[in-house]
């Protein structure tokens, strides 16, 4: 086992494997950075090139790229408030406020370091979990997914700053929006208004681009100035180090969020966005100052970044161990195995163990490399945030519109973005939080699908499954505990938040 691990590691550094990994990771960063392109697109483009390649070199290219797509996506989320990939949507919540405060370097440091941390965690998870993966996969089904999502939904109440009601109101709007489109379990189209475009529902990336990128630009074009508060201008490079230190200062949160991401990767069933959003919810719920999320909380940036990079390592496990891909990206990767003449499954583990270790090492090292690449470019890119509004506003709007159009190649995409641009503008004007809208939209859909499935499978008895029950207790605790805390505080004569409605 140990020997195989070393053999796998050695193969990472052998030429040309190392070159392919660096090439893959560089492509992955670029593809992630450009909104509208994603990891699946990249893998599909790469597949024809790996034919006839040595498996080690082929996976260096494919996994090197796949591992860092979300790292690249974080950069566009931070600088332009436009998530490069779907899971990066949660990066905008607290990342952009940090950038606005002139802490671009720090935000980049946090995002890159947390991504690398999560990525390495996911790779380690892949190695250590293989012997016990079957019982873990067996333990999570739709009932458990439903409860996990509900724990995330409970976080909506904390996202309203000092006002629980505002957080819940916007969250409810998000949940309502998640109902738009064709319900997979009944086939009924809801709120379709005769438009085929709405069959697929409202895409959350478009909503993020609208309420974050477009509305911020609307505001900026009115106020003038630049994205970042110019007072911090001198500290861009120093900030990167501060950001990296922040990540290690919050190592425990980092570890927990990486674990959340890893588990969601291992047991597919919640989709790509779940990891970062549930991790964000977890960070909010376990924070001493949940009301500050959305205003540039370090924890709010660490959580999604570590979770979605960790998820990718976890997602490799069912593909490699059972030959069962858990996501569309992994299905494409499975195609690569077949092209290379390898059959994923138990046989791969017994006959090609060094290769499996090599895959984990590749993911880990590519993650570190991708983050380093992001950091090298951080200073240059951070300067964009000091451009004056008349230059940066059209640039970002163009970026946002192109990113939006890439979602369905439909004019409807652009309409959605501008409608939510206006929604976002007024949300901010009347001091409503924005993040719960996205959280509600993403989690609502997952909750509904999994509740339907859980009910069809087990009826009401789905509630009595052990893990579901444990999650249910956690859910109740997260709702009740703050209320008790508040009651105690008021009994002591302390002031309840004045504007808590």
């Amino acid at each position, binding site marked *: 086992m140990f020997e195989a691990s070393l053999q796998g590691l050695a193969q990472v550094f052998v030429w040309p494997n190392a070159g392919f990994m660096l090439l893959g990771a560089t492509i992955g960063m670029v593809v992630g950075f450009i909104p509208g392109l994603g990891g699946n697109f990249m893998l599909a483009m790469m597949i024809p090139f790996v034919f006839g390649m040595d498996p080690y070199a082929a996976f260096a290219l494919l996994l090197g790229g796949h591992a860092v797509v979300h790292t690249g996506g974080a950069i566009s989320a931070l600088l332009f408030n436009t998530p490069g990939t779907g899971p990066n949507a949660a990066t905008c919540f607290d990342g952009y406020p940090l950038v606005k405060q002139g802490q671009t370097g720090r935000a980049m440091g946090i995002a890159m370091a947390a991504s690398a941390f999560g990525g390495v965690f996911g790779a380690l998870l892949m190695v250590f979990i293989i012997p016990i993966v079957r019982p873990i996969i067996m333990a999570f089904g739709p009932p458990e997914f439903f409860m996990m999502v509900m724990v995330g939904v409970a976080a909506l109440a904390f996202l309203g700053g000092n006002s629980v009601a505002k957080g819940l109101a916007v969250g409810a709007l998000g949940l309502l929006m998640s109902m738009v489109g064709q319900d997979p379990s009944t086939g009924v189209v809801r709120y379709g208004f005769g438009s085929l475009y709405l069959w697929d529902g409202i895409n959350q990336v478009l909503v993020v681009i609208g309420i974050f990128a477009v509305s911020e630009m609307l505001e900026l*074009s009115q106020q003038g100035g630049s994205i970042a508060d110019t007072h911090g201008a001198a500290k861009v490079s120093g900030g990167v180090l501060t950001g990296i230190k922040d990540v290690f200062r919050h190592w425990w949160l980092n570890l927990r969020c990486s674990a959340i991401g890893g588990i969601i990767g291992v047991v597919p069933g919640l989709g790509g966005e779940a990891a970062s959003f549930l991790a964000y919810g977890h960070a909010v719920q376990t924070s001493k100052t949940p009301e500050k999320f959305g205003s540039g909380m370090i924890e709010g940036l660490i959580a999604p970044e570590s979770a979605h990079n960790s998820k990718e390592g976890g997602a490799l496990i069912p593909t490699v161990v059972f030959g069962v891909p858990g996501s569309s990206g992994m299905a494409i990767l499975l*195609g690569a195995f077949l092209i290379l003449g390898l059959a994923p499954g138990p046989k791969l583990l017994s006959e090609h163990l060094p290769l499996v270790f090599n895959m984990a090492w590749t993911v880990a090292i590519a993650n570190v490399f991708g983050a380093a690449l992001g950091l090298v470019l951080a200073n240059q890119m951070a300067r964009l945030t000091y451009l004056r509004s008349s230059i940066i506003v059209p640039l970002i709007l163009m970026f946002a519109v192109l990113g939006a159009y890439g979602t*369905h190649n439909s004019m409807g995409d652009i309409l959605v973005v501008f409608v939510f641009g206006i929604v976002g503008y007024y949300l901010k004007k009347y001091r409503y939080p924005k993040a719960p809208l996205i959280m509600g939209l993403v989690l609502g859909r997952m909750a509904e699908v999994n509740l339907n499935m859980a009910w*069809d499978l087990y009826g009401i008895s789905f509630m009595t499954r052990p893990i579901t029950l444990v999650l249910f207790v956690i859910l109740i605790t997260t709702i009740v505990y703050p209320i008790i805390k508040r009651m105690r505080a008021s009994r002591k004569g302390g002031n309840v938040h004045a504007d808590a409605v």
Partner: protein
Amino acid sequence: MRHIHWKLPKVSVFILVGLMAMVLILGGCGSNGQVSKPAAGVAASAADELAFYNGKTVTFVVATKAGGGYDSYGRLIAPFLQKYLPGSTVIVKNVPGAGHIIGANEIYNAKPDGLTLGTFNKGLIMSQIAGMEGIKFDLNKFNWLGDASTESRVLIVGTKSPYHSIDDLKKASEEIKMATAGVGSASHNDALMLSNIFGFKVKLISGYAGQEADLAMMRGEVVGQVGAFDSMRNMIENKEARALVIIGKEKIPELPDVPLLSDIGPADKKALTELMNSQAWLARPLATTPGIPEGRLKVLREAMKKALTDPELLQKAKQANLPVTYVTPEEVTQTVSTALNQPPEIVKIVTEAVKNAKD
């Protein structure tokens, strides 16, 4: 108050920028479809029709997002189509949404000039039979250009389940839980129709995206599912699943003991089994707009045939693990029209399968 005075023009600048971006993109799309050649009244010769494509842009519509199977085939075929339409530029355009209906609508309703063609899910046969809303096409009137790949579908059950044959399913006292992607998806339609053909009781659990259903089988929360053999191959080889019946025209060499649906289906269900077989068979149908000039259609069909039989394409397809089998336009047209021509009782079954709200 001076501030308010200044705010208004800036808001309008913002709107202007937005509008300009939209115009840019609209302009970009429009130029793809532009036709400068005036419609000639007389039928053009084959050479003229081939020359028509010189300098033109052909749009290859893929009815899914970039990165999926349909997209991979589109991007595989496009450069070779370009090769056999000299002087043309073939671009791939992803038009996803509404389960391929938006993409198929776009091809059907394009200008009938032979510059728009594409690929979409054959499952639309079922949607059309059921008369689903949103459909603005008639599959019988599409000009088919052929089919790039054929496939067989299989019903599989988990190896830990007590079922070893379709007969076992029929004898089961419980409802057989089958995983599906959602109402209207192929996995959903096929499972419902198989239960109708063989008379076993089925309970569909909808909402498994992609291959999440495979893990659901391993967990034992569902008994099985119906899907393309290529996607199920791994599970069968790894002994996580066994196949009970093959939907398609040919036996699968890797599964010598698994019967064909047409061999074991009851005689009185023949129309339904044939519908299932034929629509499983066409994996990547290729179509263009109805009403394009006869000669041009011939040129397109010829170019598609050359593209799909080009040794270089076949080599590339092999490298990308995309099996290619050329099916002639005549066979596709025949298969589609047979499949669409169903007696009312089958229409009823299909409609229930595609549209059925939960019991």
